């Protein structure tokens, strides 16, 4: 009975107007999200190496890749740092992102229009910059030799006397600082955009009424803006946390170019990519197993995020019955 019910539901959907509009998206989501994940799950049970599909794809090793992965996480000194780095990276960058975005949104609110739009432009730049150019900029900024901007500034100020190889010699703080800085700047703009538009939706009279009562910038921020942005802060925090868990493209080149340490500058997501594509010995079964666990973590956190944001209440039904 239940089956035929589902069948008729699907049949109804296919005949509805919505089907035509959703078809392209559904195809793309199935082909490029769901099937790849399913493939990854399949791969995680095979001993696939170096993309030699014909050779390995019909062999099954059960949960061996998973056991190997757990063993490496707990015992391998080259894999352990990746998980410590991932946790530190997510927590610190998240704080930088949310506070930075909030700070910028509030600061620009109290500025004149020209200054505000200038600031917004400047801080949006990292998100919109081609990743290769963006990585190149920070590659030179943090470069370990005397051509690095940071080194030359500190040397000119007399704080240090020899160039410091930030990403390779000060382990783990150097590479952490760099990847957090580089990703932090990209993430800040997301919070800034969301908070800025949320603030612009607050009735202007609230702020002006407080001004008439003599409120300062700080007390307007504390008593009016932040309480009214509560929902948005939760939203940005959870959304940004998911982004940070899965992001790897802004770190990729920094590791490849040797700016940061391969072990203490790599996050979980990047580890999977490198294991599958750039490692000398591409251990795909292992990469897939690590990936499947990451998918599970992401899905759990994502569902949690939707709960926290009150997603159910956000969705309005369309009007009318046509």
């Amino acid at each position, binding site marked *: 009975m239940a089956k035929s019910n589902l069948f008729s539901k699907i049949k109804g959907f296919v005949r509805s107007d919505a089907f035509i509009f959703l078809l392209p998206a559904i195809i793309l989501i199935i082909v490029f999200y769901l099937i790849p994940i399913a493939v990854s799950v399949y791969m995680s049970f095979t001993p696939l190496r170096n993309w030699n599909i014909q050779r390995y794809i019909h062999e099954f090793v059960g949960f061996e890749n998973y056991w190997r992965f757990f063993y490496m996480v707990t015992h391998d000194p080259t894999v352990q740092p990746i998980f410590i780095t991932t946790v530190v990276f997510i927590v610190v960058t998240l704080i930088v992102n949310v506070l930075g975005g909030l700070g910028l949104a509030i600061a620009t609110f109290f500025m004149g229009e020209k200054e505000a739009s200038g600031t917004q432009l400047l801080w949006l730049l990292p998100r919109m910059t081609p990743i290769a150019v963006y990585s190149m900029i920070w590659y030179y900024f943090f470069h370990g030799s005397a051509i690095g901007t940071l080194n030359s500034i500190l040397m000119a100020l007399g704080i240090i006397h020899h160039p410091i190889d930030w990403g390779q010699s000060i382990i783990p703080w150097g590479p952490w600082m760099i990847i957090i800085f580089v990703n932090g700047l990209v993430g800040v703009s997301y919070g800034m955009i969301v908070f800025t538009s949320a603030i612009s939706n607050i*009735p202007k*009279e*609230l702020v*002006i*009424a*407080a*001004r*008439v*009562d*003599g*409120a300062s910038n700080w*007390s307007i921020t504390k*008593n*009016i803006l932040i*309480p*009214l942005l*509560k929902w948005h802060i939760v939203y940005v925090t959870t959304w940004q946390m998911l982004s940070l868990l899965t992001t790897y493209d802004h770190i990729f080149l920094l590791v490849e170019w040797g700016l940061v340490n391969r072990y203490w500058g790599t996050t979980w997501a990047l580890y999977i990519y490198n294991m599958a594509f750039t490692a000398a010995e591409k251990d795909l079964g292992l990469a897939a197993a690590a990936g499947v666990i990451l998918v599970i973590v992401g899905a759990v956190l994502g569902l949690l995020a939707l709960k926290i944001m009150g997603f159910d209440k956000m969705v309005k039904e369309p009007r009318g019955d046509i």
Partner: protein
Amino acid sequence: MVVVRLVNVTKIFKTGVVGVKDINLTVNHKEFMALLGPSGSGKSTTLYLIAGIYKPSSGKIFFDDRDVTNLPPKDRNIGLVFQNWALYPHMRVYDNIAFPLRIKKLPENEIRKKVLETAKMLRIDKFLNRYPWQLSGGQQQRVAIARALVKEPDVLLLDEPLSNLDAQLRISVRAELKRLQKRLGITTIYVTHDQAEALAMADRIAVINNGRIIQIGTPEQVYSKPATIFVGGFLGNPPMNFVEAEITEEKQGLYMLLSGQKLTVPKHYEPLVRKAGLRKVVVGFRPEDTAVIPECRETGECIKGRVYAVEPMGREYIVVVDLGGDLVKAIVPRSLVLIEDQEVCVCPSLEKLVLFDPKTEKSLETLYAEKT
């Protein structure tokens, strides 16, 4: 004692839009002054200039003899109520009212005393623990007023505080607000686009249009002696009737020709018409000062017309009469039975009608007063 004085105040916005131009206005101590005008006329701009939210482009603003032109709002000791009341949605009623006092860093027990006092006065002391969205419109509006009054301001500024209420409530709050203002004796400036509100509450009304003050006077003055056609047409419901007429001279005196029929120029207007040397005037008369009679006599006091429509309004009827193309309205008792297309005679009260110059649209009195 606070007298609010605006001297030649002009506000031009960055966009180049002229907010107000050359405003001169004095609001006396304890006075209830209404700023009346259509939307976009500059009345709210005037209020925000007085509050210090806008900075005048030129001109000065005084509170008594103190020049406050460049003083930020917090140093002016004003209470301000917005059209949407601007209650803080995340604060309880108590905290909303206490907010201005907390900014002043008053001790908490003193805040408590003052908030309770004000809340009691406005009969919202039962709702202090609720959030604004849990209150009705009328209650929210009281909270907004309480928040403005709690800091004992020298001047109370109200920006259309009643326009978000439904019609029934608006009328009952009107009387209440007026009593409250008289009891507290605070100089009050009240912005509204509702002429009935201004007439009912204000001691004096300043009518604003296109960024300029057109007339200042008591409700009685503004209503019965409008300075311009705009004022006459803006106040009253239904508004004043306006009909263009030609001036002719005969042995007995001056007459006005309305669609070929004669109407005597009132005696007190004769010298003004002669002095101005006008060939044409606009005759303004209020519907309630206009009699409609079924039979006409040649007296120079009435004009023949045809009934265009009859609108029963309950207590009385409004008759729309077609005077050779001009539609005029008159209020008649219910006992008078009229039907459409019936010929009738319209007789405006000669003592109460107002004559305007068609070119400048100003009343002849104003025109004359300006000339001397």
